[in-house]
């Protein structure tokens, strides 16, 4: 499986704004571009032999993750708007990567829960409790949907933000990152 995609995403995430470069095929500056590209994903997975139900489920999960980046950073991107989005599948195993240079989970959730102490606490909250930082919008269940479906379909998710990472399959494990990710880096393995 290609590991360059993860390196490309990481390189883009940590680069100084003026030096951050990204191939246009992976860059979705707006939600419309992201959705148009994600709309092609289920057909591409099905053509390579994936079961229809799983292909549409993965598409739905990627939709929730990618749209979260736009929902929570709209008009507040620290420097570069949009997401890195790439999907690869060889007919047996696959991987989808969504990364953004946004505010990150901790800064986003602190609007609703000011006493959150660190990135690890924020990630745990995002995946396990009903919460949304959007004013006037008492919602926020997309990541719970993602988490439920990972366990049910034997997938693996790595979600990094700040100096914390959660790795989810049948359990949720938390790691401390040596190199910070300002924004989010999400890798769905299937």
């Amino acid at each position, binding site marked *: 499986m290609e590991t360059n995609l993860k390196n490309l995403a990481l390189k883009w995430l940590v680069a100084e704004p003026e030096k951050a470069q990204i191939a246009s095929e992976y860059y979705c500056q707006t*939600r419309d571009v992201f959705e148009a590209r994600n709309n092609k994903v289920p057909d591409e997975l099905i053509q390579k032999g994936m079961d229809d*139900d799983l292909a549409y489920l993965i598409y739905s999960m990627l939709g929730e993750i990618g749209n979260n980046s736009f929902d929570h950073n709209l008009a507040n991107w620290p420097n570069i708007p949009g997401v890195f989005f790439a999907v690869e599948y060889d007919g047996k195993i696959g991987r989808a990567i969504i990364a953004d240079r946004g505010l990150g989970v901790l800064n986003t959730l602190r609007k609703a829960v000011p006493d959150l102490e660190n990135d690890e606490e924020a990630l745990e909250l995002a995946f396990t409790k009903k919460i949304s930082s959007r004013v006037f919008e008492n919602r926020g*269940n*997309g990541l*719970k949907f993602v988490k439920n479906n990972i366990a049910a379909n034997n997938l693996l998710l790595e979600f990094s933000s700040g100096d914390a990472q959660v790795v989810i399959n049948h359990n949720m494990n938390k790691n401390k990152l040596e190199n910070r990710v300002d924004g989010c880096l999400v890798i769905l393995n299937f």
Partner: protein
Amino acid sequence: MLSNFKLLNHMKIEIKNFGDKLVSRPAGREAFLALESYQLKGLSENEPIEIDFAGIKALTPSWADEVVTKIAERFKNVKLLNADSMTVQATLKTLREYSNLKI
């Protein structure tokens, strides 16, 4: 032309009229605004409502929260039809667990 229709004493909302892949919250919001302006306009809270998921390939909690949850909050007699696909089931499970969806 939208084919949501009212027969006898119930309103049937065919979700596929909004597309077969329903993902983002803004798109769900648009869909509910359209329903509010036409199909649901003037209906009493006791009006029987059927939400039909036939033909839906993908559905997320973000989209459904803006439509299904809001319809269920407004009307007392809501029934779900053809809700068997994997993403519809997974979405309804999440909404029941985290959005207090009662249907």
